[in-house]
């Protein structure tokens, strides 16, 4: 190989490795666990990977010896003791140990966190049966309806984002309003399907404060790839403050622009699908917008939460997320759109 070819090969390998490594880090990485169940899955992954690597190396060495080794070694390799020992006894023992270890790790996750299956399929019953903070997430096409139930029994709805206190196990009850979705936030836990007519429970225990990104993990239609969400883990005191604010009614607009935007919201049918607590808008078809201004993202995790993105969503949502169920609202003038967005952005 010429020097230039050699250099090209080295650079390509380095770039490829860097790209792979980038995919291994970040808010959605299963290799950087931030929650208890993700940590268990990560432990299992490492154990199985190391074991399998060792077995692979052993098999490759044995193959090399079988092909090119000295006659003495090859004879020893072919002996019946080695075949029975390494081919039957070793796999039986090693795989049994591994299986036992895996079951122990995963059932620890199950038993300790109290997750179970409610087969009656009624989210209301499931929520009422619990105590302490719990969150109900309903998969919709193609967004997440999130209902918090506080320890003192208050319920309020939000959308497309979860916030949890660090260190406290939070049962997340999952079901679906239409087709099968799947709730997956790799940094915190494994996947769990959201099946219509059935309530599954996933217990999230965040071990450190931070932001994790999740997405839908079961094909649910055209916009499945554009159905994501963020989970924010906060220290308990900050979480309590946030909970108190989020459960309250919407902020009252005080600038001229925002007041005009509120009037536009009220007269253009937005309240028919969207709810803003504290106003007349009480629609349940689309996401709750009471505190939309304080979310990390728009459109179920696919747009940043700023004025431009909000305007783009209102006017062009069919281009951002084709076939989503909101009609395209191209009827606002540029000025009106600015006012509407100013109103929505101040709903923090």
């Amino acid at each position, binding site marked *: 190989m010429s020097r230039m070819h050699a250099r090209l090969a080295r650079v390509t390998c380095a770039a490829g490795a860097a790209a792979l490594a980038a995919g291994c880090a970040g808010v959605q990485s299963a290799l950087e666990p931030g929650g208890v169940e993700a940590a268990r899955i990560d432990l299992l992954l490492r154990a199985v990977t190391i074991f399998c690597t060792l077995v692979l190396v052993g098999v490759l060495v044995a193959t090399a010896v079988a092909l090119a080794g000295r006659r003495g070694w090859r004879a020893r390799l072919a002996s019946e003791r080695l075949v029975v020992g390494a081919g039957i006894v070793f796999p039986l023992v090693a795989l049994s140990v591994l299986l036992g270890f895996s079951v122990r790790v995963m059932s620890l996750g199950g038993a300790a966190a109290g997750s179970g299956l409610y087969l009656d399929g009624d989210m209301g019953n499931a929520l009422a049966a619990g105590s302490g903070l719990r969150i109900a997430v309903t998969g919709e096409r193609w967004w997440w309806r999130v209902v918090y139930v506080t320890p003192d029994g208050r319920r309020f709805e939000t959308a497309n984002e979860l916030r949890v206190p660090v260190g406290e196990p939070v049962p997340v009850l999952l079901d679906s309003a239409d087709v099968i979705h799947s709730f997956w936030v790799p940094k915190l836990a494994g996947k769990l399907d959201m099946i219509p007519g059935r309530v599954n429970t996933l217990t999230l225990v965040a071990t450190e404060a931070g932001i994790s990104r999740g997405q839908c993990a079961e094909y649910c239609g055209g916009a499945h790839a554009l159905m994501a969400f963020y989970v924010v883990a906060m220290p308990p005191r900050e979480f309590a403050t946030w909970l108190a604010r989020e459960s309250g009614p919407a902020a009252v607009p005080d600038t001229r622009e925002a007041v005009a935007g509120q009037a536009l919201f*009220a*007269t*253009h*049918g937005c*309240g*028919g*699908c969207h709810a803003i607590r504290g106003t*007349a808008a009480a*629609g*349940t*078809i689309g996401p709750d917008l009471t505190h939309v201004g304080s979310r990390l993202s728009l459109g179920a995790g696919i747009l940043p939460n700023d004025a431009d993105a909000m305007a783009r969503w209102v006017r062009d949502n069919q281009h951002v997320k084709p076939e989503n*169920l909101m*009609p*395209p*609202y*191209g*009827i606002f003038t540029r000025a009106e759109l600015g006012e509407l967005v100013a109103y929505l952005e101040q709903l923090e």
Partner: protein
Amino acid sequence: MPGTRPRPPRWRQWLRHAGVLLAAGVIGGALFVWSGVYNVAASDDHWAVTTWLLERVRVQSVSTWSSFVDEPPPLESVEKVKLGAAHFEGGCTPCHSRPGDTANAIVAAMLPPPPPLGPEVATMDAEEIFWIVKHGLKFTAMPAWPTQQRDDEVWAVTAFLVRLPELSPREYRELSGAVRAGDEHKSATELAAATEALSLTECVRCHGDAATPPLSAYVPLLNGQSAAYLERALAEYAATTRSSGIMQPVASLMTPEEHRRLAAWYAALEPPPMRHERAPGNAERGQRLAQQGDPERGLPPCLACHSAAHPESFPSLAGQSAAYLELQLAVFRSGARDGTVHGQIMSVIARRLSREQAADVAAWFASLPPGGAPRLGAAQ
């Protein structure tokens, strides 16, 4: 003999003859066209054989192509016939003349002349009439329907044409509204006497005024509707972004200033005494749908938009005929109103409504007095 070529085979000789003939034909054709010896004058009638050929091609073609037309909807409805007659009066009589009238001199000098339709349509079946009205005829002045997306309008005209052979001139004037607008001479006098007065003859004939209701259940009531909405509707018709073979020609013949004045005139009108037809839908279910929506199907309450809080964007529906509302929901469903940003919103909603829900909601809005839709939440 030395020096002579062998004779070519038979088939090659024939091929050479054919080639010569073909070349002669092409050159002859080119000479014929270029020299202009063929007389295209309309004053000079065709040869009998040309006429026979053209008519035969037309009859056979219409017969074949109309076999792809869908099953006709019921054509006996007098509301459809009135709508078709009203459009015929404005859009077709300039060439085809009213029943009982003689053709004017200009029309009579066309080749082929637009025939008086009574005898013509008596020999055709409904699908053939529909096909000609929708697609027009090549090599004639018969235009296609201005939009290909409104089969409902073409069927209304077809329904009228099917009835035409048995109509007397007086019955025709009643059906088409020609009696309602008064004498043509009178409106011309009005125009001459007061130059500010709009010629309302055409609009009033179909849409009525403060004293008369719309001519047909398929014609919307404009009295008391938002002026801004009416103006925008006319602008959209004129720009052909809103599909209607009946309204597009009407709107495009007027200037934007005339649009504005007409819209303001109708917006200020009191509603006429209306006759209430039996609507097929269930008005009670329709009221529930209008006030609460149907979240299972992703339907917000109709009154969330159509509560008269913002009629420029979302027109008042109260007091419109149920037939018209159901028709428009079907038009939205078909995608014919996807050309405007307002239409795009309602098209999404209309596709989520079942046929039954559309009938129910139309029945409820029709049962309200014009201008009387309550705001969302008032009755909750």
